């Protein structure tokens, strides 16, 4: 047989045999995707427990939390949290959730597993870089976890690590010595892992699409992963320099971010000059695109999954892709909206506000198209589709609050209040995670060969859906009342009357958190005991459903897939009496 150059390139690595090569240092994108998912799963439970600890302290500050003194005798003597330990837990909660959960799960985990399959490739473009990117991310995770165990504790400067608090070292307070060093090193290493991953996604999407898989025929989530990887490449390429400069300020005596004349712990700091706002600009130049890295893959996943359960095509497929690209592009122009009251030039505020408001337009289009896709559907209600529908609802809620914050005049009042906390939790923690849940319920059969339990899945959905509204909707009211964020306790006159609301939120958070164990149980139990899944249990169109369940090592068993249709052929009359046409089917959909 004439071994063509493409198939030669495709057989870049043969199937591994040893345990280490199969499950640990694997070059197979499917294994790497599962590894990322596992890391994200571990991280989200850690992050969730941290949030419980925070909420318990906010509701009942004097109540000793059982076993907390075992985690840190200094941070929680007799189980009662010190103010600095609250800030440590808060910093780690934000950092772990944003980096190790929201950048990993919807993007690195599902993207790694499914992008090559969805475009008909045998693996990612650079499998060795892919393996390196996961293990680099894992090393970053270890450094981050180490911060819990150093004597001074984890850093207390928030996931945003503003200078000079994060840059001067131990004089600024507890948790700002070794803990902050470990944090900065961890994030720098994380940047490298993410850059490697993004590079792989881009090269794979551009070069490894199989015959007939034009860009226009790519599934929506593949598009989302592609746009996200471009954003990630440029964003993490800015965070890494910022971390390097921060580390140098901390250990090498430089003054990038620390101005002259500061007095901390009664000591005049020796720096000769430095720009505090420089850190904020560098950080948010990364930080704003980062939040779109967190949400875009979930938007893509929902756009991919919903039509399969609505049994009709996604409305406006080209507009959907156009909006994703527009959001990716605009995401680089808005970072200053985190800095309206930061002391930067007030004229810049207007400059940043306009594109921030403009991003509302593609986001609104996406939402309306999703709602319009539900219109007239013959909806199949499963755990996966419920989370897609729930996504639409929470994305609306989260997006609307952004509208307020985008305006500098209103942001004067709402900045640094719980209104902001409500906004970003709705869009990131809730909407993005809903996309991950939907993806899990949808793709679990393909990844493991077994179905998840639907009854447990629906229970998980309802408890979570009601729960997140109980947790985060009240935070808007708190913000409007002026409730400042990042406070470890509420002692001010105007805050004390709001404590009952916090207690309500805490209880809701504990219940909603407990509900996630239903999901965890379902995942593990179904992995071993779930009913065997067929090749295409959801009657979906994209390429992952055209291969065995789970897919073989090289994804398609040596076959070179040919693509004839786009991913959106639902609700069409096919020649064999079905209501959908798969991408690999030579049959063309009748023109509508």
């Amino acid at each position, binding site marked *: 047989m004439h071994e063509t150059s493409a198939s030669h390139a495709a057989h870049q690595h043969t199937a591994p045999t040893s345990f280490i090569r199969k499950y640990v240092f694997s070059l197979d994108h499917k294994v790497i995707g599962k590894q990322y998912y596992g890391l994200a799963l571990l991280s989200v439970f850690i992050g969730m427990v941290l949030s419980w600890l925070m909420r318990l302290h906010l509701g009942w500050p004097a109540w000793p939390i059982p076993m907390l003194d075992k985690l840190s005798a200094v941070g929680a003597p007799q189980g009662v949290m010190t103010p600095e330990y609250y800030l440590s837990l808060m910093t780690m909660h934000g950092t772990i959730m944003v980096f190790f959960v929201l950048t990993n799960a919807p993007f690195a985990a599902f993207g790694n597993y499914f992008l090559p399959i969805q*475009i008909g490739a045998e693996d990612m473009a650079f499998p060795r870089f892919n393996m390196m990117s996961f293990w680099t991310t894992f090393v970053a995770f270890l450094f981050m976890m180490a911060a819990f165990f150093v004597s001074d504790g984890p850093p207390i400067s928030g996931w945003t690590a503003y200078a000079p608090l994060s840059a001067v070292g131990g004089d600024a307070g507890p948790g700002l010595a070794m803990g902050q060093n470990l944090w900065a090193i961890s994030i720098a290493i994380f940047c490298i892992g993410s850059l490697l991953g993004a590079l792989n996604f881009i090269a794979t999407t*551009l070069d490894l*699409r199989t015959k007939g898989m*034009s860009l226009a025929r790519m599934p929506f989530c593949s598009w989302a992963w592609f746009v996200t990887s471009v954003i990630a490449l440029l964003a993490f390429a*800015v965070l890494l320099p910022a971390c390097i*400069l921060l580390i140098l300020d901390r250990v090498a005596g430089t003054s990038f971010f620390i101005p002259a004349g500061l007095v901390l712990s009664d000591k005049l700091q020796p720096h000769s000059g430095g720009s505090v*706002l420089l850190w904020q600009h560098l950080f948010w130049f990364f930080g704003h695109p980062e939040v779109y890295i967190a949400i875009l893959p979930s938007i893509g996943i929902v756009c991919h999954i919903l039509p399969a359960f609505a049994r009709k095509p996604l409305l406006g497929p080209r507009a959907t892709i156009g909006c994703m690209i527009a959001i990716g592009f605009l995401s680089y122009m808005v970072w200053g909206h985190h800095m309206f009251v930061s002391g930067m030039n007030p004229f810049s505020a207007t400059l940043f506000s306009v594109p921030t408001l403009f991003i509302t337009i593609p986001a609104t289009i996406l939402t309306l198209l999703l709602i319009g896709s539900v219109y007239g559907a013959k909806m199949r209600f499963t755990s996966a589709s419920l989370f897609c529908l729930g996504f639409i609802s929470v994305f609306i809620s989260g997006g609307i609050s952004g509208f307020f914050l985008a305006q500098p005049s209103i942001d004067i009042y709402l900045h640094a209040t719980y209104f902001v906390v409500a906004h970003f939790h709705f869009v990131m923690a809730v909407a993005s995670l809903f996309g991950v849940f939907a993806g899990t319920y949808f793709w679990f059969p393909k990844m493991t060969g077994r179905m998840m339990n639907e009854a447990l899945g629906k229970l998980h959905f309802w408890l979570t859906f009601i729960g997140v509204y109980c947790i985060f909707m009240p935070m808007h009211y708190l913000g409007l009342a002026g409730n400042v964020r990042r406070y470890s306790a509420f002692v001010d006159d105007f805050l004390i009357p709001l404590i009952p609301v916090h207690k309500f939120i805490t209880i809701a958070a504990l219940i909603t958190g407990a509900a996630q164990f239903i999901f965890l149980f379902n995942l593990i139990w179904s992995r071993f005991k779930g009913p065997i899944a067929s090749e295409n249990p959801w009657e979906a169109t994209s390429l992952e459903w055209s291969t065995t369940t789970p897919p073989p090592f090289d994804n398609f068993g040596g076959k070179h897939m040919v693509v004839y249709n786009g991913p959106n052929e639902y609700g069409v009359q096919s020649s064999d009496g079905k209501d959908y046409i798969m991408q690999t*089917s030579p049959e063309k959909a009748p023109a509508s």
Partner: protein
Amino acid sequence: MATTTLPPGADIALDDHGSGRPPEVSPRPGHVTKLGPQAQKSETGMWVAVSAIGMSFAAFTSAMIVRQDASTDWQRFQLPHVLYLNTLILLASSVTLELSRQRIAAIPDAARHAAVSAKALLASSIYWLYLTAALGLIFVLGQLLAWRNLAAQGLFLATNPSSSFFYLFTALHAVHLLGGMGGLFYVLRKLVRSGGAGETSGLSAFSIYWHFMDLLWVYLLLLLAMRM
């Protein structure tokens, strides 16, 4: 649902590369009009990598500009003259790299034109690659000399923001260059083994990186010269 695959032996190289358009047929059979898949994705990957590196140096550049304008403590100093010599050396290494690539590219035709044998071309190109590596190494050593010059003037990493950025930029560039040299030896090894089949050696992708390092250095030199 019948999923259709191409029959075994079908020439994927002539497929539509996912574009959905009819595949182009090469006018000269055997002549490579498009890059094969391996070289194509290596080049794509390299352009992507180069974009990321460029972006991070852009971030450092804006950091420097902001820092310089933030306070009055910026002290200018004389750039060590060896930097200019180093620049010429690095530029020369790009020339030697291209000379090497020319020889590799001539190998497929060498069978027909017996003036120079394929073996001689390969040997010659490998020689030029070693020269490129040597020039790269000399560049890095030259940078170390520049550092010593600065240290002799009492300018260290934390002495002044200007010296901080000097060390930072030159060190980061040198680190990336050394990484590139690692890549160069990887390419050399593959070339020797493949006997000159340039497509699979990664030489084209490598040259993107190396020339970028060159351009990046020229940019950094101008930046440092203007601002310090």
